[in-house]
């Protein structure tokens, strides 16, 4: 039995897209949570300064730390994208393996 290439490509794309979708939703939730954290942090900085609970040095320190933390945010996005790519590639390869097994009539892969 021969492999229908166009059908296989569609199946591989479908599997890859489905595999990456969950990571996409996680990434959206994470970015929303991070934006909320920074917004609340900025509000707390302003409020604490106005109430005299922190001084100008504290404000500068707090904002510098927020800026520095963007490096670990980049690492989090990088891991999420790599994990999504990994799952998408493996899902597509799994479909290709099944197609080869079906075509040759034996579960080689």
């Amino acid at each position, binding site marked *: 039995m021969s492999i229908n290439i166009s059908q296989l490509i569609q199946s591989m794309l479908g599997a890859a897209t489905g595999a990456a979708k969950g990571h996409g939703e996680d990434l959206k939730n994470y970015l929303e949570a*991070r934006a909320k954290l920074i917004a609340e942090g900025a509000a707390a900085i302003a409020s604490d300064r106005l109430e005299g609970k922190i001084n100008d040095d504290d404000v500068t320190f707090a904002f510098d730390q927020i800026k520095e933390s963007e490096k670990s945010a980049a*690492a989090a996005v990088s*891991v999420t994208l790599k994990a999504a790519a990994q799952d998408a590639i493996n899902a597509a390869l799994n479909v290709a393996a099944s197609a080869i097994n079906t075509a040759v009539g034996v579960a080689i892969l």
Partner: protein
Amino acid sequence: MNRSPIFSRGTVFAAAVLCWAILQVGCSAVLVASYDETTDRLLTDLSQKTETAVVRADAGQLSAQDQETFFSESLGTVRTLKARSALFAKNEDEIAALAQLEQRFEALQKHGAPPRTSLTTGLRGTLLDLQQIQIAKKRSSVFSAGLKKSSSKP
């Protein structure tokens, strides 16, 4: 002497493509380190301890002694996590994020002020980043397990 080929060029090409496909299918793509439950648990505990310290600092209930204990214990946990993460291949992003977390704790300790909400946004952001890394790894690990299960079916 001119020898006639046993296989046509087309047959050789098709065989090469098939071999390449088999090799590709035989080894799964690995782009990130596998999920580690211990790392995830230690990070969750550290986040919980940090949030507790922040709540107490906001309420003016974190003594200087408690503050120092919080920083030394937190730095101990971060350094344990860094050592553990270095044992896994393809874990560079997590190692870099943990180095950032160590810097956040050290900077805050050196600054000397209580870890109030207003001063810990950077620290809590980096903790959130590391939690997202665990979520991505866990999703991938669950997905890979599902693929192995489905491909092992007769």
